[in-house]
Structure formats: C-alpha cells, structure tokens
C-alpha cells in the first residue's frame, strides 16, 4: 500500500513529464466533457418529461446535484493530495491540492446559487437553514480559507504546505459540522425540507443526471490539467524545460 503510491507519484511527479502529459490529456478531457454535457443537457432539458410535482423547475438538478457531488469530491481529492504533499513532500501533489481548491470553490458556489434558484419556487424561499445547505456554506468557507491561506504566504511551496494542513483539518471537520447542524436543526424544529424529491428516479431523468456527473468530473480533470500546467511554469521558472517553452511561445 505504502509502496506503490510513492512509486507512481514519482513517475508522474516529475514536473516536465506531467506538463507534457497534462498538455496532451487536456483537449481530450475537455472535448469529452463538452460532449457529455451536451448529451446530458439535451436529455435533461428536452427529452426528460417534466416532474409531476415540481413541473419544469426540477431541471435545475441536472446541474445542481452534479455540482454538489463535485464540491465534495474535489474536497476529497484535495485532502488526499494534501496528505501526499505533507507526508512525501511531493511538489506535484502540492500543486494539485492547491489548484483543486478554486475549482472546488467554483462548484460549491454553483451548488449554492442553483440550490437557492431551485428553492425559491419550490419552498418559497431563497435560503433556509437546512442541514445540507448550511454544510455546503461551511464547505465554501473551508475552500476560501484554504485559498486565502495559500495566497497569504510569500513562498508558494510553504503556503501550499500550510494550506494542505488546513485542508486536512477541514476534512475532519466536515462530518462534525454536518452532524452538529443536523442536531441543531432537530433542536429548533425548523423548516424540515426534503431536498431529494421522489426517492425513486425515472430512468429518463437518471441518465442525464449521471451523464452530467461524468461531464463535471471530466471538466474538473481538464481544468486541473491547465491549472497545474500554469502553476508548474510559475514554480519551475528558472529551469531549462520552462525556458524552452517560453522561447518557443515567444518566437511564434
């Protein structure tokens, strides 16, 4: 277990190699993401019938639910990369963790905005202090804290390690927050809202949702590739391979 991870990381962890790999993978990932999104949105917006309870407003879930999944998934990726960065001091893992944070924050923001756009016609309110909404808001603050701490340091790598530590504290904190907010909600007997409508979803609604989930995952990978490439150029500014790229782009 402890052996194959560093081996694999070392192979791909060399910045010039990963730069080339990411550059080759990014267009494919982006094309697949766009393709999957086009298919998923066609299925979700056109083919799927309108819901018998929620009318057409439910069509927001085709972006809301995948974004919510991504907001948690990216936090998980960030925490794993942070762990690798802190334990094995892999430069690439630091970059992956820190460049995941803005994408995760973007998806969390989308989740909150689309959620309140869905909540207004469904519950009659933009915002309710439901356990899931509150946890998502706290997650956004966690992301912002990680990004803020990273940029507060003058030395990039030191900032990355400090922010990675914060990300690891956060991953312990997320379940605690969710549990405590749940408890708080039952104490105050607030507006209990069922977020997931009917528990059994018709296949005509399920496949667009799953396709959109694949699209957001692919998009995240593509975005991560281009972000990591830019970051590696900045980090390795003095090295020969970066110099060659700069000269090649300048002569064009």
């Amino acid at each position, binding site marked *: 277990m402890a052996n194959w991870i560093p081996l694999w990381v070392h192979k791909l962890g060399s910045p010039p190699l990963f730069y080339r790999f990411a550059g080759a993978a990014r267009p494919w990932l982006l094309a697949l993401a766009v393709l999957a999104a086009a298919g998923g949105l066609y299925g979700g917006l056109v083919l799927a019938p309108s819901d018998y309870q929620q009318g057409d407003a439910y069509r927001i879930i085709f972006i809301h639910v995948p974004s919510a999944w991504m907001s948690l998934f990216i936090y998980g990726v960030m925490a794993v990369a942070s762990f690798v960065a802190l334990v094995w001091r892999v430069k690439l893992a630091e970059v992956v963790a820190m460049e995941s944070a803005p994408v995760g924050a973007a998806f969390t923001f989308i989740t909150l905005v689309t959620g309140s756009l869905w909540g207004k016609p469904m519950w009659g309110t933009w915002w309710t202090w439901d356990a899931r909404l509150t946890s998502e808001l706290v997650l956004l603050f966690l992301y912002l804290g990680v990004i803020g*701490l990273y940029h*507060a340091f003058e030395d990039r790598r030191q900032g990355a390690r*400090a922010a990675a530590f914060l990300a690891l504290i956060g991953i312990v904190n997320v379940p605690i927050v969710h*549990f405590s907010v749940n*408890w708080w909600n039952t104490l105050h007997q607030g507006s209990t809202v069922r977020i997931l409508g009917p528990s059994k979803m018709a296949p005509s609604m399920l496949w667009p949702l799953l396709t959109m989930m694949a699209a957001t995952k692919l998009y995240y990978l593509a975005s991560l590739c281009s972000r990591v490439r830019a970051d590696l150029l900045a980090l390795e500014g003095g090295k020969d391979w970066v110099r060659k790229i700069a000269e090649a782009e300048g002569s064009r």
Partner: protein
Amino acid sequence: MSAAPLSRACAAVLRRDLTLAWRRRGDIAMPVLYALIVVTLFPFALGPEDALLQRIASGVVLVTVLLAMLLALDGLFRGDLEDGSLEQLMLAPQPLAPLLGMKILAHWLTTALPLIVIAPLLAGMLHLPLAVQPVLLLALLLATPLLSLLGAVLVALTAGTRRSGMLLALMLLPLCVPVVIFAAGAVAAAQQGLPWIAPLAWLGAALAMAVVLAPLACAAALRIALDA
C-alpha cells in the same frame, strides 16, 4: 529525556507567559471591554423588551465571547515571533507540543477567563434567567478552551504571514460552528426546561480530544509555517 525537565520547562513557559501578560494588564481588559460594548449595543438595536432579550441572551453572550476571543487570538504567537523566542522554543530539547499547550493555557487564562467572569453580568444585562446562568457558565467553561485550542492551530498556520486578522476569522468559522451550536444548544435547552447534559457532554468529549490533539497539530502547523 527524563520527565522532570519537561515539567519544569512547562512550568517555566507558563510562568513566563503569565508574567508577560501581567506586565501588560491593559491588554487583558481589552476583550472584556469589547464584549461589554457589543452586548450593550444589542438592546439598542433590537429594542428593550424583556422577552426578546431573554430569547437571544445566551446566543449573544456566546457569539460575543467568541468574537472577543478571536480578537485576542491574533496575538497568541505574535510577540514571541517578533522577538525570536518562538524559534528558541522550537529548538528546545523538550517536545514542542506540551510547551505550546502551556502557551495556549496561559492565553486562555488571560483572555477567556476574564470573559467567563463577566459573562454572568453580560447575561444579566440581557435578562437571562438566573436558573440558566450555571448552564451558560458551564458551556463557556467547556467551549472557550476548545476555541482557544482550535484557534491556536490556525494561528500557528498563519504565523509566517503578515496579514492574518480576517483570514484567521475565515479559517476559524467552519471550526467554531459545531462549538457554537452545542454551547448555545445546551443553554437554549436549559431555558426551555429540556435536558441539557447531552450537548455539554459532546463539548466535553470534543475538549478532551482537542486537549490531546490540538497541541500536537499546533506544533506541526508551526513547523510548517516557520519552515525556512
């Protein structure tokens, strides 16, 4: 390393920090004054009706104490960082975590304890029933050390940066949400005549874990943030 030098080093750190705090007694009064001002402003903003103030009293006192502590947290390592004694502490032969634990304890004694002492006064100004006051004090006694310990880890992380005030608040918010929920929940439950032991037990459990883990995390964070 034998146990005796560690305990002596811990006592020395504690005595030094308390002495330093005592020499600047005015700083100790600042968070207290801040809490007093904030609590005084609430009735002006919300109106003086007893029923309303009673309902919000525990929450206002808890959040005020939290903010006052946040204000003071920023200075936990600043003085030591500026005069270089923090580096000395990190180079000391004793393990760093217990020494930092002592620093956190000294900080709690000088900032949170005065706040807890005037908490009954603050709660009384907002007409919190006398019967609920012991629960509030108990909640504060469990919640404030927890906040000090969690905050210390974050302060350690920002030790190497220049601007940290707002960032610290942003980083602390997700961590203090559960603390505020359980502390305020206990007082609210006591006010409604419901059993209030369970949330306090959760706070106690969290405190027990934080006492063990937070100094270790604080030491690790400090080593990351000051690693040259």
